[in-house]
């Protein structure tokens, strides 16, 4: 299907020339003035690949049309090339300033018009296409994620000691930590606003491996576990990865990579005393470090009955053992936000 180009000019001859010029490659539609042009744009919406707009027109001039397109948002998706008089550099500057993509001078050199139209149409096709793909991706991910979250939290809730509020809180704490690191630390650890969002979404699955651990073990307090049971329980990190592995073909590779790293490494400790791989220091991915701290705080204040202040102190005293100094420091600074998150997402009780 040919793309559609709107030609706006009050002189019939000019419209005819442009139509003749563009009709081999585009569907053309003409308006003989600004008002008609706006009517056509309203009707066609996103169908127009480009508008060729004359500046000087009696009923409503090109600038007024541009202004209206700016106002109603049409200009974002539909590019405009202005047609100006040759001697008016001022007009050209004004066109561009008001949001036109380009201009052509009257009298036309047909090859120049064709070339400029083609360039702008292609640029916008590319840009609009990209935006659509990104929108679809984001939507797919968030839809899939919502379903995953809904199903898994129900399952985790019934089968393990985790609650949906806990999962939600860990996600929010993680965001607080990483956002602060991203905004204030010299070493951003490869974080961007996008990766932080993806990590937070991925954090939901941190304990998915518990689904493969016998319920009898999960129901016990960690202090009641025998050494053997303790080892079985620790396997939830590795087993979670087994559940995530098959998802590797999913298009969003970052998402899966974060899921995997969080799942596997959220019980590693800074001093190398964690499990399953006994990673040390920054060998532990930052996403897992953040989730580990978030998880620990939540465990202290919710399961172990510590007060917020006690939990903050405890995590601070654990410096150099469990968590990275940078994260512990960050945690001290955003601890108030942790408390707010906890207050807003309290346990509902089962």
């Amino acid at each position, binding site marked *: 299907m040919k793309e559609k180009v709107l030609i706006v000019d009050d*002189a019939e001859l000019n419209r005819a020339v442009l139509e*003749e010029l563009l009709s081999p490659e585009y569907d053309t539609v003409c308006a003989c003035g600004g008002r008609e042009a706006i009517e056509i744009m309203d009707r066609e919406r996103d169908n127009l690949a480009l508008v060729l707009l004359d500046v000087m027109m009696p009923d409503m001039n090109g600038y007024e049309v541009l202004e209206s397109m700016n106002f109603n948002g049409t200009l974002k998706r539909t590019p405009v090339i202005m047609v100006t008089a040759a001697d008016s550099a001022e007009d050209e500057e004004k066109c561009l300033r008001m949001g036109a993509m380009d201009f052509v001078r009257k*009298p036309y050199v047909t090859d120049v018009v064709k070339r400029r139209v083609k360039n702008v149409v292609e640029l916008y096709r590319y840009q609009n296409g990209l935006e659509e793909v990104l929108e679809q991706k984001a939507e797919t991910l968030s839809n899939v994620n919502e379903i995953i979250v809904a199903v898994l939290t129900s399952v985790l809730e019934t089968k393990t000691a985790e609650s949906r509020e806990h999962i939600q809180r860990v996600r929010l704490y993680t965001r607080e930590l990483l956002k602060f690191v991203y905004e204030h630390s010299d070493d951003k650890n490869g974080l961007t606003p996008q990766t932080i969002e993806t990590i937070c979404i991925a954090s939901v699955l941190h304990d998915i491996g518990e689904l493969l651990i016998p319920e009898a073990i999960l129901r016990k307090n960690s202090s009641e576990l025998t050494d053997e049971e303790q080892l079985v329980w620790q396997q939830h990190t590795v087993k979670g990865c087994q559940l995530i592995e098959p998802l590797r073909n999913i298009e969003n590779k970052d998402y899966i990579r974060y899921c995997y790293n969080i799942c596997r490494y959220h019980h590693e400790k800074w001093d190398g005393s964690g499990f399953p791989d006994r990673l040390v220091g920054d060998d532990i991915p930052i996403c897992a470090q953040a989730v580990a701290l978030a998880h620990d705080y939540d465990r202290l204040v919710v399961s172990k009955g510590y007060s917020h202040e006690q939990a903050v102190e405890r995590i601070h005293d654990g410096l150099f053992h469990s968590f990275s100094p940078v994260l512990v420091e960050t945690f001290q600074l955003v601890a108030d936000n942790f408390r707010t998150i906890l207050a807003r997402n309290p346990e509902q009780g089962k």
Partner: protein
Amino acid sequence: MEMETLNRAGINYKDGLRRMSGNEALYRKFLKKFLQDESIVRLKDCLSEGDMEGVYEAVHTLKGTSGTLGMYDLADSCDAMCKKIRNQEADFDVNAIYSRYDAVVKAIGDME
């Protein structure tokens, strides 16, 4: 020769043709179409009514179309008049436009 006749009437045939990507049939079609262009009528009407805004628009339009078709003398006259009107000077030469318009129209009318 026809091309010379057109040139003498103020139509730069070679240049006008270049503007149409060298498509001769197209160029001739638009030259013929120029005969139906109503800007000149509008110019006369507005002038007699003293509607200077209308005069300006008509001359401006005529400047554009004549330029596109390689009628540079006519386009120049229109341009001069546009400038005068913009500067609110009343001593514009509308007759230069009429005579150059008549010349191109006659040459196009004689065209095959």
